[in-house]
């Protein structure tokens, strides 16, 4: 059983609290949430906990990928998390990796923001695009990678250019910025897409299966993600047209002292060329 006795008590305590205080207030009363006083200093809280809680992708080859054979996360973003952990705990990158100072949790576009809000995660490093709206709710580091949106289709579909998406059904991920990027790019070709052209799914495997099964005509997402699902029956629609620039940043809770630490580290890694090296290591160029 992966529930410790403490968690057993927590489940029951939280459930009982719901009973006592009404459903909504109850959700707030996770005993672990109170008492740690982490509102004052995020960095101190992480230090005393001894682990950095990181939200990462599990299904983006080269960025954040959960290897089902080893059960380990791997990719550029995973290494980046260890770099951040090294900065927070004041150890070297190698030490951070060796001591396993990061606790990884799989996130999806939909779950990224809320999990920072409720303090489940300290940082989210998960192909998270910086946008103006998101900057209102969370802090972002400077971008550590730039990617573009791609549109994946079945070769058998006979589509050749972006304008062919007219009247087609496109699968995108919930809570991502892809929908707007595709709409804008296709609009430049003189074709208008509406909300009715998009289906939003909770996770990537679902979108991929929907494409394979013929429920949707195209799977639009960052190219890094599409890469995971590419095979010889699928192709990118007009890969030479680059649109929907996606600047990935590391997200942290708004106004926390952690944000500065993270941003300094990212800039340091950009300056000393580590990020570029990593991109080569993971074949991202």
């Amino acid at each position, binding site marked *: *059983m*992966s*529930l410790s006795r403490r*968690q057993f008590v*927590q*489940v*029951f305590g*939280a*459930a*009982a609290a*719901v*009973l006592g205080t*009404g*459903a909504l207030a109850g*959700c*707030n009363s*996770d005993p*672990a*949430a109170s008492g740690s006083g982490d509102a004052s200093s995020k960095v101190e809280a992480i230090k005393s906990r001894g682990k950095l809680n990181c939200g990462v992708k599990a*299904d983006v080859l080269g960025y954040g990928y959960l290897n*089902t*054979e080893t059960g380990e996360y791997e990719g550029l973003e995973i290494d980046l998390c260890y770099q951040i952990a090294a900065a927070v705990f004041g150890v070297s990158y190698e030490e951070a990796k060796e001591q396993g100072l990061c606790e990884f949790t*799989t*996130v*999806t576009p939909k*779950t990224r923001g*809320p*999990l920072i*809000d*409720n*303090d*489940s995660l300290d940082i989210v490093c998960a192909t998270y695009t910086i946008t103006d709206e998101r900057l209102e709710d969370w802090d972002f580091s400077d971008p550590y990678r730039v990617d573009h949106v791609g549109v994946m289709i079945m070769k058998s579909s006979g589509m050749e250019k972006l304008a062919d998406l007219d009247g087609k059904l496109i699968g995108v991920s919930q809570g991502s910025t892809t929908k707007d990027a595709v709409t804008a790019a296709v609009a430049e070709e003189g074709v208008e897409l509406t909300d009715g052209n998009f289906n939003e799914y*909770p*996770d*990537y*495997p*679902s979108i*991929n*299966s929907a494409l*394979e*099964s013929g429920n949707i005509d195209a799977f639009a997402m960052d190219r890094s993600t599409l890469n995971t*699902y590419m*095979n010889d*029956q699928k192709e990118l629609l007009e890969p030479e047209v680059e649109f929907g620039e996606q600047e990935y940043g590391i997200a942290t809770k708004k106004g926390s002292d952690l944000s500065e630490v993270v941003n300094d580290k990212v800039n340091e890694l950009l300056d000393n060329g580590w990020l570029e090296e990593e991109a080569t290591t993971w074949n991202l160029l």
Partner: protein
Amino acid sequence: MEIFTPANVSFIMQGFLKTIEISILAIIFSVILGTVLALVKQYCTGKLSIFKWLVSAYIELFRCTPNLLWILFIYFTVKGNDIFISVLAFTIFTSAVMAEIIRGGLNSIPKSQFEAAQSQGFGFFASMRLIILPQTFKTIIPALFSQCTTVIKDSSYLAGINVAEFMFSAKVVMGYTSDLSQVLLLYGFVFALYFVLNFGISLIVRAYQRRVVAA
């Protein structure tokens, strides 16, 4: 491409174990919380009836809204690992159902049992614990177990929040293949395992009922 590789199968089976683990824990907690709720709704009268109303509101709220909604809500508001979150979410809405089942059981116990217990000097809690509740649980075992089946089945809603339970693991593996026959085979496998588990439970219940009827 062949998807029933050892790595994939063990990945899916880990999901299956997680489904079972979550279900068992959720059921245990729901029975405990459900009993408390049922007792409050049944016996908190007079000055204490405010609690009775609170419990009724709780039960109606969770009875009238989809489980998926609460799974998502808990996921976004409570922190913890995926098992903790799943068990908490399931406990919260399953206990509402359990409370109604247990109350049904309490109602079926003749009043005379209560009076007899009191005449023998048992207090409220003692008579509950030693006399009323054991009989109650005996009568509601079939309903209790059919609720277990419901929990096991509904745990597949957790695939919506990326908990790597059975359904989600199968979905991930399904992403590796485009071959229709492999996809169908995989669905067959998923259906078969859920079926064996749930049908097994219902066979046990039937055997139990037969024994009770025979006795």
